[in-house]
């Protein structure tokens, strides 16, 4: 952390996006996390993704729970809506906000404690309800704020900073998200922005519940030999299944790819996800295969990253509830109070 505010000077040739903003305009207050925290890199990736997508900051809502990860929304998108909720309760608050105003882009930011322990139920239900959001877990495998106890995502057998082995089975949030019906599931690593930024962009443009499990080393308590969430371990065991390019409109394919090497997926809003396969047999449109592959590789000690699964034609909670296209918070009295006749009619239909 630093006591100084980041100087307002930026590079004189810093590019601007379609809205005339520079990347710096998507920043927030200066981070108070430990120096080198993976979460800060994820914040930087979110900033970059929103800048590149030309998102108007005031049309984004960022919500979080409690924990190091849940502090980060202060450090990006300073001009967006923010809600720092109760521990593990971000999914409920986000669901409510989404129901009230479906026009905003929802970004849920959580951690492994917030989502895999106290908020596990909330996490599960927001995914299975297909709330239209990006739910990102900044996963470091420890409770950093309370000095480094294992969290529920820590791998069995991995060592704490003091050398004690973890005896519990880990919760794999990506596998859970697949099981619970998330229509976009990815895993990435804070130390690899080339992979992470396109995934965030694709997820922000995805309709339905998009989930990213982002491994984010805790430099203070979980970046030592024996940890499976350290920079070195993740780099050594990173099994990236694909590389993603996100295009808001279809662009010609410039590089030549061998047959089967490239997969194009067009999402509901027209965004084209162009996936360069790193593993020739991996198909990100096959939920069952994705779940099997995660189990297989996890048993080998490999960390599978990339876009694991996407259903481009997914429906969301509003579709399921058949809500009106107008955000509920924008409906006027005439729409909300149809009068006694309409009530009588409704009551009659229920008798």
């Amino acid at each position, binding site marked *: 952390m630093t006591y100084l505010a980041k100087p307002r*000077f930026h590079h004189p040739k810093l590019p601007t996006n379609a809205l005339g903003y520079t990347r710096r305009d998507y920043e927030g207050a200066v981070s108070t996390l430990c120096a*080198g*925290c993976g979460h800060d890199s994820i914040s930087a990736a979110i900033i970059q993704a929103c800048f590149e997508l030309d998102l108007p900051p005031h049309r984004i809502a960022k919500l979080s729970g409690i924990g190091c990860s849940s502090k980060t929304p202060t450090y990006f998108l300073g001009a967006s809506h923010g809600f720092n909720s109760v521990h593990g309760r971000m999914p409920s608050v986000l669901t409510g906000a989404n129901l009230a105003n479906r026009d905003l882009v929802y970004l849920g930011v959580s951690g492994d404690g917030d989502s895999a322990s106290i908020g596990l139920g909330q996490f599960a239900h927001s995914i299975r309800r297909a709330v239209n959001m990006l739910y990102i877990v900044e996963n470091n495998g420890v409770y950093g704020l309370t000095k480094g106890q294992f969290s529920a995502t820590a791998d069995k057998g991995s060592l704490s900073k003091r050398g004690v082995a973890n005896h519990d089975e880990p919760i794999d949030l990506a596998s859970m998200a697949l099981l619970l019906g998330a229509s976009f599931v990815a895993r990435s690593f804070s130390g690899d922005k080339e992979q992470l930024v396109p995934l965030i962009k694709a997820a922000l443009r995805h309709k339905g519940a998009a989930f990213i499990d982002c491994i984010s080393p805790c430099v203070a308590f979980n970046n030592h030999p024996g940890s499976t969430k350290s920079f070195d371990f993740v780099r050594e065991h990173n099994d990236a299944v694909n590389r993603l390019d996100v295009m808001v409109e279809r662009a010609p394919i410039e590089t030549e790819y061998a047959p089967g090497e490239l997969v194009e997926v067009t999402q509901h809003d027209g965004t084209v996800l162009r996936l360069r396969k790193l593993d020739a047999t991996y198909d990100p449109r096959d939920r069952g295969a994705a779940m099997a592959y995660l189990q297989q590789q996890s048993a080998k000690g490999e960390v599978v990253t990339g876009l694991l699964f996407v259903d481009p034609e997914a429906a969301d909670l509003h579709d399921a509830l058949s809500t009106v296209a107008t955000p509920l918070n924008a409906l006027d009295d005439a729409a909300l109070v149809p009068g006694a006749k309409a009530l009588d009619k409704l009551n009659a239909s229920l008798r």
Partner: protein
Amino acid sequence: MDGRGPGGVGGVPPTDIRNPDYFHKVVDCQWACPAHTPVPEYIRLIAAGRYSDAYMVNWKSNVFPGILGRTCDRPCEPACRRGRVEDEPVAICRLKRVAADNKDDIRHRLPAIPAVKNGKRVALVGAGPAALTVARDLMPLGYHCTVFDRDQRAGGMIRSQIPRFRLPEEVIDEEVGYITGMGVELRLGQEVRSLQAILDEGFDAVFVGTGAPRGKDLDLPGRREAAANIHVGIDWLSSVSFGHVERIGRRVIVLGGGNTAMDCCRSARRLGGDEVKVVVRSGYDEMKASPWEKEDATHEGIPILNFMVPKEFLHEGGRLTGMLFERVRAEYDERGRRSLVPTGEPDERIDCDDVLVAVGQENAFPWIERETGVEFDRWGLPKLDPVTFQATNPRVFFGGDSAFGPKNIIWAVAHGHEAAISIDRFCRGEDVAERPPPGVETSSQKMGIHEWSYDNDISADLRFRVPWAEPEKTLRSISVEVELGFDARTAFAEAQRCLNCDVQTVFTAQLCIECDACADICPVDCITFTANGPEAELRGRLNAPSVNLTQALYLSEDLKTGRVMVKDEDVCLHCGLCAERCPTGAWDMQKFLLEMTHAGHACRSH
């Protein structure tokens, strides 16, 4: 990474930060200064209110801080990194003046002069900044120095050509006095007419620092007839300085676009010239005068008329009545060379009472005989070794304007230091060509997790203007100083604009865990972790556009992932946030203090 593999194809080798030139170049101001004054070092001292210390850092390096703080051509300022980050550079020159104006008595801090001399005698021809610098370096070593000058008082062009309203006499007396006070033998008021005669006096070495004393004339029709009212600029300025001239006509034309022309027009304005005009052949933007000197003239209500070529001096009955000018425009050929082409408009007549000709200066060495062995090139300049300033007669050395043609005071000082090293080595029978490396000191500025021993909070202030005395006062007198200098508060605020470019970002690849924290926090995006590659291609892949090719890339050795850390030095704020955010101490902020080695023990072979 994209298939290039570790190290890349034809990648850039890791930067050798042990080479003093690397970090020296990052300190743009110091690198640009001919005398390589450690600018950020003294600016920090000014901010701390340690004016005497700031003065001594300057004095050691550039000998005339009070004089230069008012008159320097300031090559440091166009180079200043701040000018690339926002609109304007730090007011380095005027901060120097703050140190000079506010210091305590520093005489006890001047070097001690040995009572027992070393037996070597050095003649210094000319008492200008170059020769005085040689004396300043050699006197403390025990040399006997003898200075010759045609003027009655030491100082050279500093005294004779720079008007008093820019540089008060007391400042000259004080700083010239520090050197003459070292016990220099002065032979003033006598023009040296023969180098041979000086050599015959048995001096062990002779330094020629006679400047560029001859102002160019304009041989146009009417020049002879109207001679009484046509003056050569530098001669006229000198007469004004020494009080021989006190008035000029009401309407004055100044010919020329250099700094001398600016001094002429502003002086004329104060000596009765109510209507002073500067007329230049070229366009306004191509004038040689420093932009601030042009502004100062304009500020005093002096118009600068451009694209007018002087054609004729008009006269009546032996009296100058005006001048005729041909109107031209600039045309450029495909190679970008300019020619001035007449526009065909009728010639323009400007009435005037006096003309000051300030169209350039020349060197003149009528007093150097061929037999001395000192040879000249076809431009009339001495044939010199460009590093040692030694002439073809090994006992003779040159410096200042007399060496390579007209430049300015700070160049003369830089030459003086180098010539002093040469003379010292020559007198000791050592190889003159062997030059001493600069003295370099690096020290970490880290004092705690967020504590640095320099102020790394970047000030957002814009450049402060130096206050001026009221024009009603200054325009009425040739000696009332126009600029008042910064007060202590403004000086502090201006000093805080300095980015401390000498506090270097030092990277240790072995400690880096590639967490991206530095790249994420950097306010100007100058840090990138990427695969190596050929420089031109690599610059195209950095986090921010890397288009200033004069600024270096700082490359680390290969990191664990096979990538390298690349830092584009161009607009780094030296804010140290990379080092504050680094969890492993791979980044450190280290002060790099480079001081040129001057004549003395440090540059001797034995």
